[in-house]
């Protein structure tokens, strides 16, 4: 990697205590015709330099909205945002369009779920990477080409020279996702936002991409915010996890805390509802009754309360506060005294 001198953060700088990215009390509301959709309802999230945080949740829980709001990708006319997002001490929500353009790419960049939709079909991958590089840095065509080639080598695309001249549709899903990661890393960002980057891939390719991301993160000292609905993928990559439900983070902790000692009833139910290796044949899956909340008509209290087996009247009255549980684990629930007994046995011997 001599051609491309990526910023060198040693992997051991991970434990930087001041958060590089901090989101405080973020609310996002979309107006769609007569309805308003409360997509985010008070999200607090802090990510340190070099840390990987996974956002887990079902569709409509607000994972992707959080990422997109971070990059200010939502159409401003139909979106109301309140709260505060700071990246490296700068207020993202107050940036002018010009500042935003300089912010997207060199500071924060994003990998999307479906690279075929995110990449431009009428330009070769090389052209797209070179365009981005030359937009942000004063490089000649040849220099940009050399940087693009180095990036392709870095994400281990076989015969990179030839692939730079390929169009997105000519590559397989795994290769496209590698190219997408190369594009996202082109301007040496400090934060990488990954929105379900492996969901559309096969298991054998998914693990390759996860390992690549982990390796890049170590080498480049990246902070990664990784959105997924697959707890397994999160367990492979994340240091910390935030579980989202109904536009709020309901539980947060390290990966092992959440797998071995989940405390929020939703996290517990989610882990129990998975089919896993240690199940007896014929054993029924434990399901969560009911369906996810309607974001256009959220209840005043805890949004999980209508489906929660432990709900009491007070749960329906007000949104539960964030309760610290020690060692950095927090949960938004007022019945935590009841959930402590449910907490063993979630790490399963998943593989043979």
């Amino acid at each position, binding site marked *: 990697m001599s051609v491309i001198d990526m910023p060198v953060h040693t992997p051991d700088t991970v434990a930087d205590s001041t958060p590089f990215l901090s989101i405080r009390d973020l609310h996002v509301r979309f107006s769609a015709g007569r309805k308003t959709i409360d997509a985010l309802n008070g999200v607090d999230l802090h990510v340190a330099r070099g840390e990987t945080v996974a956002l887990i949740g*079902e*569709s409509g829980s607000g994972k992707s909205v959080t990422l997109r709001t971070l990059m200010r990708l939502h159409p401003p006319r139909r979106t109301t945002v309140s709260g505060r997002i700071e990246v490296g001490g700068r207020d993202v929500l107050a940036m002018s369009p010009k500042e935003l353009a300089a912010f997207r790419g060199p500071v924060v960049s994003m990998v999307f779920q479906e690279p075929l939709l995110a990449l431009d079909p009428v330009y070769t991958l090389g052209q797209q990477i070179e365009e981005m590089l030359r937009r942000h840095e004063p490089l000649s065509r040849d220099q940009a080409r050399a940087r693009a080639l180095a990036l392709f080598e870095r994400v281990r695309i*076989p015969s990179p020279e030839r692939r730079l001249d390929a169009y997105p549709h000519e590559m*397989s*899903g*795994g*290769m496209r996702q590698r190219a997408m990661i190369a594009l996202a890393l082109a301007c040496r960002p400090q934060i990488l936002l990954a929105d379900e980057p492996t969901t559309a891939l*096969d*298991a*054998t*390719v*998914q*693990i*390759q991409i*996860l*390992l690549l991301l*982990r390796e890049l993160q170590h080498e480049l000292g990246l902070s990664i915010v990784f959105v997924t*609905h*697959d*707890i*397994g*993928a999160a*367990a*492979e990559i*994340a240091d910390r996890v935030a579980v989202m439900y109904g536009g709020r983070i309901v539980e947060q902790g*390290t*990966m*092992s805390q959440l*797998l071995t000692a989940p405390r929020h009833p939703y996290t517990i*139910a*989610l882990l129990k*509802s*998975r*089919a*896993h*290796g240690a*199940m007896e044949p014929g054993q*029924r*899956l*434990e*399901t*969560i009754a009911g*369906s*996810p909340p309607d974001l256009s008509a959220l209840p005043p209290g805890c949004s999980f309360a209508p489906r929660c087996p432990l709900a009491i009247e007070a749960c329906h009255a007000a949104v539960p506060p964030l309760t610290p549980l020690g060692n950095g684990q927090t949960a938004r629930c007022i019945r935590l005294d009841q959930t402590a007994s449910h907490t063993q046995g979630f*790490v*399963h011997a*998943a*593989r*043979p």
Partner: protein
Amino acid sequence: MDSSVISRPRPPSSHIDIGGPQQALLSVRGLIKHFPLSRSMFARGPATAVRAVDGVDFDIRKGETLGVVGESGCGKSTTARLVMQLTMQDKGELVFDGQTVGSRALPLRDFRRQTQMVFQDSYSSLNPRMTIEDSIAFAPSVHGVPHKQAIVKARSLLDRVGLSPVRFAGRYPHELSGGQRQRVNIARALALEPRLVILDEAVSALDKSVEAQVLNLLLDLKEEFGLTYMFISHDLHVVRYVSQRVLVMYLGEVVEIGDVNEVFDNPRHPYTQALLRSMPSMDPNRRTEEPPLSGDPPNPINPPSGCRFHTRCPHAQPVCSQTPPPLSDETGHAVRCLMYQPGSGHSAAPMGVAA
């Protein structure tokens, strides 16, 4: 739920179990499907084709769930469509309970009534202009059930899959959530009282909590209606949970088939081993360090010679690129690999039987 609303359906005369419980419900022999590629006028050499399914044999036993796993492009879905006879095979035959599909004894129309399919995309597989009750009643009407009777049946099925007919019968697909739509698709598949239901990634698009609900429903229905499932999925955890036997496909071929616990606990084919090791570990202290397989599957237009997996196989030897391995014929756990074939020339193979 009031179980008296719907009585256990009596099989109509055409659905009688012919061969008894020991006979396989469906035997697939030598199934081949190549999709020809359009070639330019000046192309030389033999015409090329995507060899999507290339000589597939398997049995589905009565009352079991056969799981089918493999990477995308390995021919899982094409196999399902061939079994449904939605695409016609180039070669090979399907024998359904002892009768050849398409023969005079079992014309396609009769076969299709006994075999139904649920697809991954719950929205595009329902007609957006039909209420869900009409969608469910449609197939029985086509097969000669009077409309009124078909609607009554549709409503009882809706009730059975957990959608209250009073609230849901008159709705259109876009008014339902993904999980609810998939329940409708399941009800529709059951409307003809089939014996074999093919579930092609039927729960893959659902959220985890909804997936669990639908899986439980599928297991209940199987019990209640005496169904046999062919369950195609890329989620190995789910396949292990629902299946009795599992079939592993790679580039249009069956590479391993056997009892689910046998295959998961003691995988024999190197591809199956790699596939199982690719499952996330669910333990942050024991993360995967090396990708079990590198690269993508080869192109099915021009599959590798010999064993199709030899290009990615850690145990490959020169013989693997020359000799295509046969599927071993052990009944419990068959594998297509030279390492297990006596006298194949692979150094790990057992010694050949002395003549």
